[in-house]
């Protein structure tokens, strides 16, 4: 990458000097720009494949203890430093060190480190409980299936890995290789470590502030796609003692052409509960059912934003309770 930046900086200065010779009223992008960018991209790929990325911890200006201390302070948490350090040590690192010492001829290698396996297990349980409790409180009308879908999204490895990386764990992790799973596990271990050092309230706030906020401004329908919406709507109406939903065409245009459009409304006892559009009647019914369901579940397009200031009410015992 450094090569790319050096070269690009040179080129930028060169293109500045070239630009002086060109009449000023010409404002298009020059014909040489695209081929140059292509060439730069090609070269940077070659360089990065050969060059091994230097770990930050191999630099002279590196102090692991200060880094770990600053990590805790950055998150505005009071971690127990020993537990926090343990959260970064993966079992693969300990095995790797032992093998290295054995290769050097030490028969009984002693590594004064504890791995974070127990913290990961604890963190996973806590994360799942707190996220589910938060969602159940924020979306009281959504059925279990939906809550499960949102929880799966929030606690997925890819999502946790992004959060973990952006909190600055990458340089601190002690593991033989760092991939998405390692990053996600480190975040789980951090949650476990925080619970060990600061208790329920702080751990819940951590989960709320860093994991639940990922739902902010997201389209919930993209995360949870309702399968067979009209059947779901019918069963919803049955359960809630509403009249059986009926579909009626409100408007249609350009029928039997490629540009056909249908406007369908769904009525329950002559009350309009949802309307939707589609290129055929079937699609329009699906869209209308989704609209109606989302309105019933309280996750419509214009829903209130999530309240990320909810606090934990009671001590976490059997079931986590939240108050608004």
């Amino acid at each position, binding site marked *: 990458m450094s090569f790319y930046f050096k070269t690009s900086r040179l080129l930028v200065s060169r293109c500045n000097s070239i630009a002086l010779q060109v009449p000023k009223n010409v*404002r298009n992008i020059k014909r040489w*720009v695209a081929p140059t960018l292509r060439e730069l991209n090609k070269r940077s790929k070659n360089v990065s494949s050969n060059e091994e990325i230097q770990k*930050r911890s191999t630099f002279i*200006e590196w102090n692991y203890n200060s*880094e770990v201390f600053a990590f805790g302070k*950055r998150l505005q948490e009071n971690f127990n430093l020993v537990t926090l350090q343990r959260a970064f040590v993966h079992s693969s690192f300990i095995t790797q060190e032992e093998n290295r010492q054995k290769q050097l001829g030490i028969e009984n290698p002693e590594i004064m480190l504890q791995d974070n396996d127990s913290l990961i297990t604890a963190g996973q349980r806590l994360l799942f409980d707190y996220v589910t409790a938060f969602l159940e409180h924020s979306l009281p009308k959504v059925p279990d299936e939906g809550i499960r879908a949102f929880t799966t999204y929030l606690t997925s490895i890819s999502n946790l890995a992004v959060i973990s990386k952006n909190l600055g764990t990458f340089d601190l992790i002690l593991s033989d290789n760092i991939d998405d799973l390692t990053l996600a596990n480190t975040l789980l271990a951090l949650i476990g470590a925080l619970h060990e050092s600061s208790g329920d309230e702080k751990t819940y706030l951590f989960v*709320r*502030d860093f994991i639940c*906020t990922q739902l902010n*401004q997201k389209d919930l329908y993209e995360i949870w796609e309702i399968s067979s919406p009209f059947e779901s709507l019918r069963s919803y109406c049955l359960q809630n003692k509403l009249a059986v939903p009926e579909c009626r065409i409100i408007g249609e245009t350009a029928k039997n052409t490629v540009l056909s459009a249908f406007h369908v409304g769904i009525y329950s006892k002559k009350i309009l509960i949802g309307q939707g559009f589609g290129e055929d009647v079937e699609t329009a019914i699906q869209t209308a059912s989704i609209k109606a369901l989302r309105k019933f579940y309280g996750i419509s397009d214009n829903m209130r934003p999530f309240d990320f200031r909810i606090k934990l009410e009671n001590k976490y015992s059997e079931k986590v309770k939240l108050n608004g």
Partner: protein
Amino acid sequence: MSNSHLFLKSGFPRAPLQNGVGRYICQLQRITLKFCKNNGSSRGMREFIEKQLIDFAKENPGTVVYVKPRRHRTPVIVAEYLNGDREWHNCRNLSKEEITQWITLMKTQNGSSSSLRLRKMWHTDMPSIQGPWTPFTLKNPASNLVIFPNEELSKPLDVEKSATEKLIELFREQRLSEGKLEENRGN
């Protein structure tokens, strides 16, 4: 940004990880101050280290500060951000105040802002709040009460006037103007 910034990395103004929705995290994770102990160009940097560095470190416990003396080299600030950016800034002959300003900038931004070409000054995940357009969107409510087939609505919208109609119109205008002329004469 102008055309000469084509080779800069481009992007939109974004807050990483919904920063500030839950709690605010300073995105500067570590800062390295490199300076010379006796060269004149490092004077401001030395003053900063003597007078303000301890306070800075106390106020920002989340930022790791490294100080690296090097003989006869230009003073430099290297800032590293949580998104992996590394920003290198030359501080040759800068005064203590100027260095403070640069460090404050680094503390408050979320990446090396000078190495990013902003494509727009804003960004949104939801470009439209109206939803997709359909032929029924913005329809005139009056058309709900029309009984079809309707003669008025069955006509094409762009019927041009025929030559005869244009001639008749011209003739009428002429008659009008002539009438006005006679009135004027009569007066």
